[in-house]
């Protein structure tokens, strides 16, 4: 099977998996004990209050009706256009849109995940390579020991030790939160757009530059693909030019009408750089350091061992000996030849670890009071907030599926044997 059909099959398979996941969460939530209705009443609750609340939360409808509502809500396109995220229902605790809450909590976890993965993979791979090069030496054993021990450390314990040392005793870094309370969260890049004096026509004319640029890229690509330019190529590039021109004109006019262009990724480190505010950047990095170090060190263990094992195998292969015999530098051989070939399983592991990340993130986020998806889910469980938990788990399931999809496709791209 070719690469294309492999990709298509994999993408199609994700839909039933997600549907199944969603249904399972839905059922499990409603079957197990715990009642979001009663939790709204800290003190007394008369029966009529509970009844009203039940109706207000939509829990008085039969189970299949609730399920149908939920599924149909998910595929509601108007909602997506209006809000920018799918309809995941309203939180049973705060009545806010679950989609909105998840989308504001998600960037926090994403930021933590990205930086932890960077720390974990860089540290893990480097240490693994070093260990494999000095097989059976003391350094090798030390690094192997490190790789094994990190797996056995409870995440929250490491986090608390870091809090103790760096937050309480040394006072260098904050013990919780995404950014110090004395500094406002960064808002990203805000550009105030002014209306061009010639109105829409002027904007339209200017957009021709964008159209030209995009069609130039298109022509270059066509040349690379060696398409005969005479008729087909010309037609394609003309069509691209006109479409790009029109689309760009309308899109840019839409943003001009809005007045301000806000580019915010939700990642505080990047947003503060976009905002060109060094104080916020420093504060967000300070707050990010301990949690990402905790998660990163714990995750690096498995990268150390995997890299070491794979490198040990690869370094024994003939082509490595041949490369060394040809007189190539040691570092080129290690990184350019051996690591490259050993990299594929590491890539798969990266994908798998992203999935494990949420479990680790829940404990890290609770320890460091990091307002991300993990802590969100944990709080919502204590509130028995069905819609929120469903939404968060599905969101995360989607994320995991996407990541594993990307990893699988990359794997198939690099290794033709998999596509069969």
């Amino acid at each position, binding site marked *: 099977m070719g690469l294309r059909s492999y990709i298509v099959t994999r993408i199609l398979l994700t839909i039933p998996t997600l549907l199944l996941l969603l249904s399972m969460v839905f059922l499990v939530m409603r079957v197990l004990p715990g009642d979001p209705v009663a939790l709204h009443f800290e003190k007394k609750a008369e029966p009529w209050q509970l009844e009203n609340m039940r109706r207000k939360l939509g829990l008085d409808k039969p189970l299949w009706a609730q399920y149908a509502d939920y599924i149909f809500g998910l595929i509601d396109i108007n909602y997506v256009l209006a809000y920018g995220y799918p309809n995941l229902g309203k939180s049973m605790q705060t009545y806010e849109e679950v989609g909105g809450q998840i989308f504001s909590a998600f960037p926090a976890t994403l930021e933590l995940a990205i930086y932890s993965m960077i720390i974990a993979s860089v540290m893990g791979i480097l240490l693994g390579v070093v260990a494999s090069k000095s097989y059976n030496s003391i350094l090798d054993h030390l690094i192997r020991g490190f790789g094994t021990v990190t*797996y056995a450390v*409870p995440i929250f314990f490491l986090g608390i030790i870091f809090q103790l040392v760096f937050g309480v005793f040394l006072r260098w870094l904050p013990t919780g939160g995404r950014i110090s309370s004395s500094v406002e969260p960064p808002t990203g890049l805000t550009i105030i757009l002014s209306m061009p004096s010639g109105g829409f026509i002027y904007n339209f004319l200017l957009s021709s530059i964008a159209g030209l640029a995009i069609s130039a890229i298109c022509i270059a690509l066509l040349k690379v693909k060696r398409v005969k330019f005479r008729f087909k190529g010309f037609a394609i590039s003309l069509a691209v030019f006109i479409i790009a021109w029109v689309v760009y004109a309308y899109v840019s006019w839409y943003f001009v009408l809005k007045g301000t262009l806000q580019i915010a990724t939700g990642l505080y480190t990047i947003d503060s750089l976009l905002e060109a505010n060094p104080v916020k950047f420093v504060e967000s990095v300070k707050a990010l350091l301990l949690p990402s170090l905790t998660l990163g060190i714990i995750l690096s263990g498995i990268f150390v061992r995997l890299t070491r094992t794979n490198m040990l195998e690869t370094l024994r292969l003939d082509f490595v000996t041949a490369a060394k015999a040809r007189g190539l530098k040691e570092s080129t051989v290690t990184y350019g030849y051996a690591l490259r070939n050993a990299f594929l399983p590491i890539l798969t592991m990266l994908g798998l670890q992203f999935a494990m990340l949420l479990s680790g993130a829940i404990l890290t986020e609770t320890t460091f009071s990091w307002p991300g998806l993990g802590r969100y889910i944990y709080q919502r469980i204590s509130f028995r907030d069905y819609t929120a938990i469903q939404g968060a788990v599905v969101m995360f399931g989607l994320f995991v599926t996407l990541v594993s999809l990307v990893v699988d496709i990359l794997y198939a791209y690099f290794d033709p044997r998999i596509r069969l």
Partner: protein
Amino acid sequence: MNKVKIKRSILAHLIPGFTSLTKKGPSGWMVILGLVIVLALVVMTAIGPWIAPHDPVWYMSPKIRAPPSPEFPMGTNHLGQDMLSRILVGGSIMLQVAALSVLVCFLIGVPLGLFSSYVGGLFDSTLSLVIDAVYAFPGLVIAIAIAAMLGSGVINMALSISVVYIPSYFRIVRSQVLSIKELTYVEAAKATGAKWHTVLSRYIFPNVIPSIVVVATINFADAILTAAGLTFIGLGVTYDIPDWGWDLKNGWSYLASRAWWIITFPGLMIILLALGFTLIGEGLSELQNPKLQR
């Protein structure tokens, strides 16, 4: 084959098997080290109640949050309980929960995997899809959700942890069986008229055991860490049962008063216990990996 003969052959493998481990290089030493650590901790927990200097729960000294001293070598916690006694006794709940959850996972995941991959076809594909969906669940979320809803107690904790790990057993067993069942001697067994349960139990299952053992040890280590995590969040056993997880939870609350000893010692013990199992698992998996034999 006689059941007696099987038992004898297993025993016959165990003892020389153990000594042969020492000859297998660093991986063998890993396994031995792991076994020693685990055994030492189990023994310590078992005789803990007798060698502990004070009652780990009911003895409350007026010297609360006292740093390590000759009287209290590991200090006292916020209620005046002696940390050393709590360390000696506190591993039992974790061991019980982990053992129980491994047992449950084994009893459910392995037969399911064996049966499903042997039968194959639609049944196998649907079950795999369901298990994959469960696998996509963030594990800790399930554990927390179930523990929150079932309440405190060893059995509830074990149940919530096992639900998380059953998919791993299933997948490992299934992938192993898929390759084993194509082997010629299995075909031969089927050709000679062996029934499906005989084929599974006598031909396929023994080949799957090595990988199951590895998964089980890693599962043990994970279960210990998850049990600690659950108690840390407050969903573990009640406070009248000494548990390292409780000390971690308490230690966190008293961090700001610089009482580092409340959290450090229990944490190190948990690391040690999980490390023991991880070493066994890692060592065994390395031993089985032919590519590393030099």
